[in-house]
């Protein structure tokens, strides 16, 4: 890295907020050490840093809590880490409007704690809430079990302030909950993995905290029966806020109990009487389908659900995420596990069953497996998902495996539009180059 560029960064953010050399340990991703890490303390400083990087055509890696830093295709050049943790203020919260504006570096847990004091919450529950920042959650489109009822970041983000790869400060959306003026820019940045701009501020829709919430678990001898129970639940009058399907290993890892087949975990919130009635109804609904031991789980189980598959085979050799139709979830889990077993791997599976998001972790004894056979197993999983009209993302894998199995699906004809958007918004290609779909 040129000294002049580093000096430029130091003059923008102050020398104490530019790290180089051995101090960069925490920002090493997949063995790549960045050229520098820069920590701006204001929007103006982000603008300054990106303007300098753009001029030098130095790649920039926007960084929140680093929880998704290894997701994506490996970058050709390590570049400059742009860390946002110094920008973590709650800028506005008007409870009567059910909206809040925050800086991107606030952690999800920090934001929720601040909102809870006023009886509200952001209805988004991604994993690693203590570390994950709001900006990172938006960039990675991270979510958790409660997305079943409350949707994902795209449904909650109403306004966004970003700094583009050319150092321009741009606002999209607004601060009101309903708004169709101009293009829906907030949607563009959700799930864009920092390839189009650096989110510095976000305005979000909030919800009042429910009076009561309870998490229920039901055990099944067969995964298939648990899938049928999920289907019956979806067709019923109940309004669950989470519908999670975990195989035996994942259920045990999440502390959701033991079952030879699977555990269906269902959340309910609302008034006390609504929660109580729905828990009773759930037990009644699943009993004829083979559901046993309907029981309440402690609230601490919530954050353990989304990472359950991975936790079950820690350390995993690879993690793959699938998006399929809700009714294909149980079959996907069963087929995938069978396919892995046939290749001599163990796997664990957990799903946000009501929305069709399935996560699988694979491992081998003795670990770690050689990359060739692992890559073949992952490729088979992906084909399985595609055959049913679904998608697959290689969420985590060693570099040697990523060299053989693409991280992202081919987006098809839409990929051409995505590439054009990237070229329009980041013409110098400095924001996370090469990390995302279609070579973006």
């Amino acid at each position, binding site marked *: 890295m040129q000294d002049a560029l580093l000096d430029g960064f130091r003059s923008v953010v102050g020398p104490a907020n530019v790290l180089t050399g051995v101090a960069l340990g925490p920002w090493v991703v997949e063995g790549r050490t960045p050229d520098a890490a820069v920590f701006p303390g204001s929007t103006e400083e982000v603008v300054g840093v990106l303007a300098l990087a753009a001029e030098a055509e130095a790649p920039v890696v926007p960084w929140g809590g680093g929880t998704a830093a290894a997701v994506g295709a490996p970058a050709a050049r390590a570049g400059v880490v742009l860390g946002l943790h110094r920008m973590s203020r709650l800028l506005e919260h008007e409870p009567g409007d059910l909206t809040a504006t925050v800086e991107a570096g606030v952690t999800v847990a920090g934001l929720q704690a601040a909102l809870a004091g006023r009886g509200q919450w952001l209805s988004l529950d991604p994993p690693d809430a203590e570390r994950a920042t709001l900006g990172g959650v938006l960039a990675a489109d991270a979510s958790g079990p409660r997305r079943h009822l409350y949707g994902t970041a795209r449904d909650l983000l109403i306004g966004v302030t970003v700094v583009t790869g050319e150092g321009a400060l741009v*606002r999209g959306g607004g601060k009101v909950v309903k708004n169709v003026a101009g293009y829906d820019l907030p949607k563009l940045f959700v799930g864009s993995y920092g390839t189009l701009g650096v989110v510095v501020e976000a305005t979000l829709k909030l919800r009042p905290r429910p009076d009561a919430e309870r998490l229920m678990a039901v055990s099944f001898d067969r995964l298939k029966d648990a899938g049928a129970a999920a289907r019956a639940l979806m067709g019923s009058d109940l309004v669950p806020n989470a519908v999670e399907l975990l195989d035996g290993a994942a259920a045990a890892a999440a502390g959701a109990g033991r079952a030879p087949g699977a555990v269906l975990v269902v959340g309910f919130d609302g008034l006390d009487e609504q929660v109580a009635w729905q828990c009773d109804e759930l037990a009644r609904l699943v009993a004829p389908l083979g559901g046993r031991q309907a029981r309440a789980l402690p609230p601490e189980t919530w954050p353990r659900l989304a990472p359950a598959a991975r936790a079950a085979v820690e350390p995993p050799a690879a993690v793959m995420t699938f998006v399929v139709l809700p009714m294909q979830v149980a079959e996907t889990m069963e087929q995938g596990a069978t396919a892995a077993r046939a290749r001599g791997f163990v796997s664990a599976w957990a799903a946000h069953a009501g929305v069709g998001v399935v996560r699988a972790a694979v491992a081998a004894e003795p670990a770690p497996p050689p990359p060739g056979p692992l890559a073949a197993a992952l490729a088979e999983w992906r084909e399985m998902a595609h055959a049913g009209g679904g998608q697959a993302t290689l969420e985590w894998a060693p570099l040697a495996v990523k060299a053989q199995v693409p991280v992202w699906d081919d987006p098809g004809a*839409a990929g051409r539009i995505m590439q054009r958007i990237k070229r329009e918004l980041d013409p110098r290609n400095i924001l996370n180059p090469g990390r995302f779909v279609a070579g973006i």
Partner: protein
Amino acid sequence: MAVLTESRKASLRRELEALVGAGAVLADPDELLVYESDGLTLLRALADFVVFPTSAEQVSAVVRLANREGLPFVARGAGTGLSGGCLPAQGGIVLSLMRMNRVLEVDYDNQLAVVEPGLVNLHLSWRVGPRGYYYAPDPSSQQACTLGGNIANNSGGPHTLKYGVTTNHVLGLEVVLPDGEIAWLGGRTRARAGYDLVGVFVGSEGTFGIATKIVVRILKKPQAVKTVLAVFDAIDQASAAVSAIIARGLVPAAVEMIDQLTIQAVEDAFGCGYPRDAAAALLVELDGLAVGMEAQAERIVRACRDSGAREVRTARDEAERQLLWKGRKSAFGAYGRVSPAYMVMDGVIPRTRLPYVLRRVNEIVAAHGLRVGNVFHAGDGNLHPNILYDPRRPGEEARVVAAGAAIMRLCAEVGGSISGEHGIGLEKADFMPFIFSAADLALMQRLKHAFNPTGLCNPGKIFPTSKSCAEVGPVAYRPHAIEAKGLAQRF
């Protein structure tokens, strides 16, 4: 834009007829007149052709022909839009999608439907209703407006307070891109890798291409519904009640406000049971589980009474509930009883600013010597001031336009938006600088350029016509560029 010669026009007509069929092309001025405006009749623009394709392939073929000829083109649904968004601002081809109105598939297990863009919004709920499902976004024009139009405008409706607007219900789109290529954005599953192209396409007002197949979520009908009418002697009390409801931790399915002028018009026209002497009424709807419904309704009643409601009652049965909603949804039609014409405004403000903004709206309109009726989605701060006027009185229209601009300025000043659900279209293009900077608009232009590099797909919409944004004043009416060129006129 180039003016087509008669012979060129005749040969293009034959080509279009070869693509979509002889009975599916209009080119005679008398026939084209039907398509010269949408629900905002202040603006008009004439197409060279209106075509009625029946498949994505036909849409694609027409779009490719338009590209070859350098002709602008724009999709049109039922024409119920309220911002001139589907007008052929620079002439060219209007693609009416009204013959593509089939429900292609309903997958109840996965709670989705695949439909064509010309399908009428309400017809989807009719179709899936017998199985206990419905399509949630419910614009007031839902008996006529189409899903394709809803996609273009990201349409809302009363029940979007709890359930979200169109974009929250669309999973995937088959689109004909502005160069004629057919591509899928999203699909039947929840998400796929890459940018959220569905998210940016919805609400792009027809400038990113033409949707030819639409995958939407369908929802289970709620087990129970309860509708509460709260009557107030002061409009400030009704505004305060909206915040009081939110403050009590409730998110009703809908919170609608109706002011006195509107109540009287509705009662004259339909007799729906609203008290004529009330300053304002709130229509609050709760839905969800039967268990707990009474307790929630009780919270609503208390919030309204604590805010000074003189009367709060619950609809006794479905017939009374339907009657109350008829009053709300027919309000626009009822204005015909009290005024020869009206202009619907659409703006959004933070909910907590309702008392101040409603007072200012009434002051602004009065200062322009006009009357206003308010009937709107109070729960999410989406105002619809309806300015009443008589187009036969000289000068009155200009005052309506001026008052409307001042109201938009007001929405921007309190941190709101210049459109909650009607879109920018032609009507509000010059108001965009009220809420967006030059850099914001430049980024939007780049996004547009990624989809629509030639600009032939629905030109003249969304973006301000004037380079010098600062000149846009709230009072002075300036002719739109297409009016100045004689391509459109206000009447």
